[in-house]
């Protein structure tokens, strides 16, 4: 009875308490689904355990002056098997579920490195990808090729470079619903590219290119935050990603592009 209330309460809280920022990429709703499940399981476990501890402390407290001992139970094999098996099953479920989420986020797909990007990399270096690497499912449905952008991080700024059009910008402009492939490398120390509204993060590493793909789904300006300690101004190392309508993006692109003549 108590446990049923607990489970229902946990599910209700998981569904109704929103602790996350705005959803602005195709990756974010999948993330939030995972969060909801973990939050529900976590709430049930936490409230359950806390409840047991408090209940025991009240129910089994000794009267002042009482010198008697409790019952000499030293263990109970079936109970112990139960609380080995149940957590193991929960963990297994969480693991499989998050694997599925990971797959849906594109984590298991081979890195999609364009011809074009490849020659920009020094030599034949390995490229490491974050989650969201390669195009997401939605993107492949639309047959849209990913937009390649290069990111260079340095103390204490993010610089974006659009190979097509040879634009260099301190702001990341991307059209809505367009898969983007960010190829990232750092000039000095390790930084990290994080957009909370996209639920994505990838370290930007010196001497080791990394790649991150995402599809923005909501128009707006979102912060790009450096998430790896990189020196005194680490806290101030921020930039903005501007997700805009395709027309607006095109306009921005045309205004800034140096070689507009390459195929549109």
């Amino acid at each position, binding site marked *: 009875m108590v446990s049923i209330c607990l489970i229902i309460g946990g599910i209700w809280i998981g569904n109704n308490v929103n*602790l996350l*920022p705005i959803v602005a990429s195709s990756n974010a709703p*999948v*993330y939030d689904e*995972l*969060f909801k499940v*973990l939050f529900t399981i*976590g709430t049930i476990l*936490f409230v359950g*355990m806390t409840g*047991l*501890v408090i209940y*025991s*402390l009240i129910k*089994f407290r*000794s009267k002042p*002056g009482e*010198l008697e*001992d*409790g*019952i*000499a*139970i030293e*263990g*109970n094999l079936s*109970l*112990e098997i139960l*609380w080995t098996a149940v*957590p*193991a099953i929960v*963990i297994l479920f*969480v693991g499989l579920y*998050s*694997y599925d989420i*990971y797959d849906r986020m594109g*984590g*298991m797909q081979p890195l999609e490195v364009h011809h074009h990007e490849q020659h920009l990399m020094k030599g034949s270096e390995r490229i*490491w*990808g*974050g989650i969201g690497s390669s195009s997401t499912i939605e993107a492949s449905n639309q047959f849209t090729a990913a937009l390649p952008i290069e990111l260079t991080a340095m103390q204490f700024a993010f610089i974006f470079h659009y190979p097509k059009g040879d634009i260099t910008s301190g702001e990341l402009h991307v059209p809505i619903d367009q898969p983007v492939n960010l190829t990232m490398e750092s000039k*000095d*120390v*390790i930084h990290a590219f*994080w957009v*909370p509204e996209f639920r994505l*993060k990838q*370290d930007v*590493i*010196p*001497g*080791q290119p*990394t790649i991150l793909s995402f599809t923005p789904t909501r128009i707006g300006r979102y912060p790009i*935050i450096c*998430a*790896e*300690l990189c*020196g*005194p101004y680490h*806290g*101030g190392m921020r930039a903005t990603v501007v997700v805009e309508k395709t027309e607006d993006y095109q306009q921005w692109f045309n205004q800034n592009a140096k070689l507009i003549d390459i195929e549109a």
Partner: protein
Amino acid sequence: MTISIPPSNPEPLKSLQPKGWMRYLSFSLDHKVIGLQYMVCGFIFYLIGGALASAIRIELTSPMSDFMARDVYNQVLTLHGTIMIFLWIVPVVNGAFGNYLIPFYVGARDMAFPRLNAVAFWLIPPAGLMLISSYFINGAAQSGWTAYPPLSITTPAAGQIIWIISVLLLGGSSIFGGINFIATILKLRRPGLKLMQLPMYCWAMLGTSILVVLSTPVLAGTLILLSFDIVAHTGFFNPELGGNVIVYQHLFWFYSHPAVYIMVLPAFGLVSEILPVHCRKPLFGYTTMVYSIMGIVFLGLIVWAHHMFTSGTPPWMRLFFTIATAFIAVPTGIKFFNWVATLWGGRISLNTAILFSCGFIVNFVLGGITGVALAQVPFDVHVHDTYFVVAHFHYIVYGGSVFVIFSSIYHWFPKATGKMLNENLGRFHFLITFIGFNLCFAPQHWLGLNGMPRRVAEYDPQFTFVNQISSAGALLMALSTLPFLWNVFHSLFKGDEAGDNPWRGLTPEWLTSSPPPVENWNGEAPLVTEPYGYGKTKVPEPLNQIGTKD
């Protein structure tokens, strides 16, 4: 087979040692003196680390960097982390309680290598002083307690090198201690005492010491290579010279995840000693507890890359480390259920020791839940290196280890000093610590989820209010040490006499006087084959009733 070495007969040596309080400043070979040296030294560093934490929380009451310079903030942050880990938690949960209790538990008169033991302790104060003084020389290290290159190679070298030397000394101290505990537990057991009859803390220390001995040398090697990169401009980790920064992260976490267990496994052991005494019930599931400790030790060695999910690791590696990490929750969960089962049906005295232990259970469960969530790669890529992680590990190290340290102090203070601590003041101490702790760290989960990265001196103004709540909690935590310190000093001089066994405990340290004689027992060491035989064995009456007044 156990050889009963007539404990290397250190008595003649000891008689040459200073007496009274002076012996706490001497190169004493007595494990009890060394244990208390670790305790007091650790607590002093805790106060220093706490002062630094307060400075951090003051800076974070406003979104601008206005309380201290930005590079000073990073130095304070680095010192805080390093001090709390290497000079407070690790030496206290291992060195202090290990040295004090393990010889009693195995029925020995001292540790296996008393001189090595003293050396291990005396490495700590100079290492700590050196670390702190680096701030006044040329600025302390400022690359965080993780010292990731290339940042650690490019920040001012003096501070970073001093940091490396002191961590090496502290690591050395920890290895000496580990070897000593393994030898003592396996080889100095009193004849007739079987391994599976040892109190649980011995198992926890055995597991921990295995981790210490296997993983600390890796950290030492890594930091030596890092120092070459800094002073000799070698290129192990420096990408400009063809080095690889990710290799450093692997090596660093190969030590530093086990380090997490070096900080909590002994705490698990201490809780397993404290609960049965005050619940008047046997420890539930002794055998599964032992196996789960060993399971944690094994799994703890193969999960390090969960700290590197965003560094860019291949998918198979991410999967492997997700699964391994999540499965640590199984042996850990067993321990928690067993503790709750120990509470169940007991005759619980609601004293300060039990309150802190139960506070530990509640806090650690929350920290463990967020830990399992963090182990899921897709979850971690959003919250890695944010305040969510800060909240997570403070629930583990503060809500876990520090709560257990306080619980243990209330439990063993009467043994070590012969005086009782004041219970009312103790409960008050627990209450404000518990409230302050949760007020400080619970809101940080939200901060991390919503976009506040860790290790920053300035942040988005939308987070101001929640940061101020967190700082108010930190203030409460700082204040909570005052009743504690008052309690300790007052009780030391004016406290009630404790008698030999105020809690009517069954483990061997209670079967001698308080404080115990240099030889631990006058006469032969007692053979305790049922350290948790509550409800079965005839429990000794409290020798004088004062201790249990309520």
